[in-house]
């Protein structure tokens, strides 16, 4: 499997201090249109941990993920990403931090005029790491997510499941420290869902930190049998530690 080697960053002089906490929320809340979506969220994601985020539809799972990669700023409390306060970050800081976070959205967006292969390679181009890009690496990644035959297709030609797999491949091509996935198996069949989860488990075993928002309890049970995963539940805008009922 291909993922960019973080050691190459060090060779280039791009040093990432070993953070003790990748994501830290301290009494963080988010209010939109007068409605309190999240409140008093306190959470720490340690390097190498595996977390599930559950909760009913509309409970704020996506909002919490958005807070984690600075698509939204908290209206109350504090959010720190890679030990930096998100409120103090410039847009360039945010861009740099996002290169260390792989995001798989519920509604995956691509550049529709570029092929799947080009979309996968885009994070490397954007971060000036074109030298890490070899066609065989992208092909390996395409094979890993079962899209070997679809590399030259345009994103609008992909099915929902194929789009999610392509989004996952794009999210991990930079070998990010943290992977945030919002219902990554929502549009795929059970077999593909298990393959994708196996992929995420493998990444976690390589030391990557994973946070998956899902309401699929079977999925959580499958993963919990393989790795030590914590399950967080959002209920009534608040975060709770679940687990006993799983």
């Amino acid at each position, binding site marked *: 499997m291909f993922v960019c080697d973080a050691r190459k960053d060090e060779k280039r002089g791009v040093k990432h201090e070993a953070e003790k906490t990748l994501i830290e929320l301290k009494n963080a809340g988010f209010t939109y249109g007068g409605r309190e979506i999240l409140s008093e969220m306190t959470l720490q994601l340690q390097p190498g941990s595996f977390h599930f985020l559950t909760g009913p539809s509309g409970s704020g799972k996506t909002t919490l993920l958005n807070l984690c990669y600075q698509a939204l700023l908290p209206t109350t409390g504090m959010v720190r990403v890679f030990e930096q306060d998100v409120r103090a970050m410039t*847009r*360039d800081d945010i861009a*740099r931090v996002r290169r260390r976070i792989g995001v798989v959205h519920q509604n995956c*967006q691509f550049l*529709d005029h570029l092929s799947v292969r*080009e979309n996968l390679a*885009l994070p490397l181009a*954007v971060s000036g790491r*074109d030298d890490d890009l070899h066609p065989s690496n992208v092909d390996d990644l395409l094979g890993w997510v079962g899209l070997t035959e679809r590399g030259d297709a345009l994103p609008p030609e992909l099915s929902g499941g194929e789009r999610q797999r392509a989004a996952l491949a794009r999210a991990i091509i930079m070998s990010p420290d943290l992977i945030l996935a919002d219902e990554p198996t929502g549009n795929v069949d059970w077999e593909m869902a298990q393959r994708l989860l196996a992929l995420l488990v493998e990444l976690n075993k390589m030391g990557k930190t994973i946070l998956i928002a899902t309401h699929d309890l079977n999925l959580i049970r499958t993963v919990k049998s393989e790795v030590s995963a914590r399950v967080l539940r959002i209920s009534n805008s608040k975060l709770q530690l679940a687990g006993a009922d799983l």
Partner: protein
Amino acid sequence: MERLRSLMDIFNGDGNADRVVPPSGFTARLTSFTAASMAFLAVFALALSLATGRLAARWDAELARTSTIRISAPEGQMAAQSEAVLEVLRTTPGISSARVMSDAEQRKLLEPWFGPDLPLDTLPVPRLIEVLEEGRGPDAAGLKLRLAADAPGAVLDDHTRWRRPLVNAAMRLRILGVVSMLLIAGSTAAMITLAAQSALAANGQVISVLRLIGARDVYIARAFVRRFTLRALIGACVGTGLAIIGVLFMPAAAEEGAFLTGLGFKGWHWILPLLIPPLAACVAFWATRWAAFRTLSRLS
């Protein structure tokens, strides 16, 4: 340094940054057409400005080198006063030569107003003496006093009252030409800014995806800036080329110095219209860069 690097990237090219923005035929054509039109107009404004400058200089030089002495005297005294005037002029410093204009020459001067059959000998037409000056010319006030003493019917006309409004008019036309060029540059910048903002707004999804994967604003802006700068450069090259062909076909400057002839470039002035395409590209570069960063900061 980053700005300089951005400017150099325009020409060096960045295949990846180029490709992230989808091709947009209409905006591309609009930008190129605008740049071509503005360059075309700028060439003519430049030609007008330079031509009026030359005209002003020519009028100033030609009229400044000559003056006229008009003698109005009874028939019997005309010859004596003419001789007295010539004598005064001969002894006046700053006068190169002076001569009495012949009847035929005076008839020719009056012909546009009175027709070719003017009976000059029956009319009390003043005698004209053409004076050619040298160096800094004569002391007009002193000359007038001497003429008043030796030839009371002689009036010195050093053309100042003709020259000043003509030169002023030509200089104002020149200023108008320069102002027109500034307005053209401003309009080009405004139109390219609008086109760039429209392109950025139409590519919201592209920007959203690029930000999601960690693209810095400078990377996103560069893709748009390069595209618009190159479009403006190509459009301006076409517009300038067409305008230069148009200028080449303009009538050459007539001997009579008619105003609408001689609208073109002379000598090293031909280099000036060639500067319009790179200037248009610079205007497009800064306009798009400003629009891109402004739009991106609003989208955050």
